[in-house]
């Protein structure tokens, strides 16, 4: 069964450094998402992406964040200058369409630790 994959599984970085989290969505899906989950808290929406542009973003997704689909398979989340509070699990998700009735399928996540 097709799956969303994410790399790396874990990332440790120093505050102020840039990180790029990578995702390979399910191959025939057209809509891509990033969510984060701070330890012990709810999963929170960051951004959705379709047709090479951002469809929707949350208040969390400020100027320090950017997303890109550099080729036909990868979807990336970049944090330009990491802060301690960026430490969280980051999940990529994809769906075949953007209907609110459409299921989103999640990857296994990248655990980011900012020191």
């Amino acid at each position, binding site marked *: 069964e097709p799956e*969303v994959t994410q790399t790396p599984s874990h990332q440790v970085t120093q505050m102020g450094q840039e990180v790029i989290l990578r995702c390979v969505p399910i191959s025939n899906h057209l809509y891509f998402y990033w969510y984060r989950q701070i330890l012990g808290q*709810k999963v929170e*929406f960051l951004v959705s992406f379709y047709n090479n542009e951002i469809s*929707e973003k949350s208040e969390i997704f400020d100027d320090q964040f950017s997303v890109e689909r550099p080729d036909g398979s990868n979807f990336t989340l970049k944090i330009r200058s990491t802060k301690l509070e960026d430490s969280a699990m980051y999940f990529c998700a994809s769906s075949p369409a953007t209907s609110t*009735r459409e299921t*989103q399928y*999640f990857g*296994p*996540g990248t*655990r980011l630790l900012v020191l």
Partner: protein
Amino acid sequence: TQLLEQSPQFLSIQEGENLTVYCNSSSVFSSLQWYRQEPGEGPVLLVTVVTGGEVKKLKRLTFQFGDARKDSSLHITAAQPGDTGLYLCAGARAGTALIFGKGTTLSVSS
């Protein structure tokens, strides 16, 4: 603020017991998805419900979407230790963002 409230937050039961987890909101959702999440892993989809009053079954799990599409429940019959985990509900309204509840942590002991 759109909130999805899940209850109970924690549930510890014996193998063979039945249980129900609730997901409530004051907002109407176009669809509601239930996921299960293991520690350190991503949410794994269990089911999506889209029609008010809809009931879906997945082996011993029964999911119901409220008539008004504001609430949902997950009922597990004859729970087994393998059912142990974090159960999340997530609702979709307008737009693309899923709104997650905090989850119910279920522990089933043998």
